[in-house]
């Protein structure tokens, strides 16, 4: 087990959103304010880590044929728990995430990591993988939130800071409204993926040119 390597993979070289291109639907849908991004990111991180642990724990007794069904049941269990707990204790977040919270069940990151990692690795390594991949997802969400919120509505930290309105950095009339719409999510994510691919390809190119 190598925490540093797994962390680097989750955050950069094998980032769930920007490199594996998983979980893009929620990434584009909820990244309109900082509070949403943080809440969704942490929710996914917790669910991913827990489901990774359980799946790693039961991987030897689960018959291969029904593993996907088992994954879904385990994931759905955690998602429903988190959904109910958020509705009860953080209703504001639950209201603003809306349907995307229950939809974590079919978020490909969680099913993808279950199949690709925790079904083949031990409990501790799977837990670390869940935390690292979840962290990578959260970071991308937050970057998206900051860009879309700042350029779209001109504020920073919406939903948390300044009584929920966010700190205004750009006058409202200069906001690029399209960025707060779903199409802005596509544009923003595309730019981030392009930047990531460019950054990842750079060291290779240098070696090739030598």
């Amino acid at each position: 087990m190598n925490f540093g390597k797994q962390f680097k993979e989750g955050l950069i070289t094998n980032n769930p959103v920007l490199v594996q291109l998983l979980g893009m639907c929620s990434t584009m849908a909820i990244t309109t304010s900082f509070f949403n991004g943080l809440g969704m990111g942490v929710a996914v991180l917790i669910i991913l880590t827990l489901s990774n642990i359980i799946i790693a724990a039961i991987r030897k007794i689960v018959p291969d044929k029904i593993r996907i069904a088992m994954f879904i049941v385990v994931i759905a269990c955690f998602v429903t728990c988190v959904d109910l707990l958020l509705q009860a204790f953080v209703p504001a977040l639950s209201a603003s995430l809306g349907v995307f919270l229950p939809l974590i069940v079919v978020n490909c990151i969680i099913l993808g990591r279950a199949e690709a990692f925790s079904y083949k690795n031990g409990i501790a390594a799977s837990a670390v993988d869940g935390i690292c991949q979840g962290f990578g997802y959260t970071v991308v969400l937050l970057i998206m939130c900051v860009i879309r919120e700042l350029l779209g509505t001109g504020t920073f930290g919406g939903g948390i800071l300044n009584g929920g309105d966010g700190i205004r950095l750009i006058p409202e009339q200069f906001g690029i409204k399209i960025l707060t719409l779903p199409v802005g999510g596509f544009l923003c994510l595309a730019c981030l993926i392009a930047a990531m691919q460019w950054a990842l390809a750079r060291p290779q190119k240098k070696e090739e040119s030598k």
Partner: protein
Amino acid sequence: MSNETKTKEKVDMDPKYILKLTLTLLVTCVIVAGVLGFVNSITKDKIEAFNLEKTNTALSNVYQQASAPQFEETDVTDAMTAAASSYSATLKNVYKVTDGGSDAGYAVKIVAAGSQGDIEMVVGVDTDGAVTGVSIVKNSETSGIGSKVMGNLPLANGTPVLDQFIGKTTSDQPLKVGSNVDAISGATVSSKGVTKGVNGALAVVAAIG
């Protein structure tokens, strides 16, 4: 035996194996159901209390001029449901409002489609059939655009967007964005959603008679 029965899947289907698959899934589902039941039992009351509080806040919001409004849920008739759906809104509940013992009209909880999903709102209508206020209970409108309508932000002329409905009666119907209702710029669809709800609520109260 025909050739079809000799496909690969059939070979794997040893009864013991099938039983193992079924039992594994069954046991997992029982455990999961148990866990969910437990979480549900600790969160249920809190969620219900929160939803009730939201409805109550919305109800008292639409009757701000009344000193001590009392809300009593009344039965929804088919005529009321039909009245709401004639303006493509879905009726949830109707509350009879009394203020200090005297009749003060009705509050209607109604759902209409916004730009990102359903908008659930409470519309108050007084005894003269005029809207006393509109309050949003639940919505999923875009943060920064449709949320301006939900948050009752002021229109270009300074009137808060939801307050423009106050005083409207059935004689103003159909209320329509662009003619007798102003929309927040960029949030036309959300404004239209609320307008549908208000139209529906007025029709529902008219159906009560």
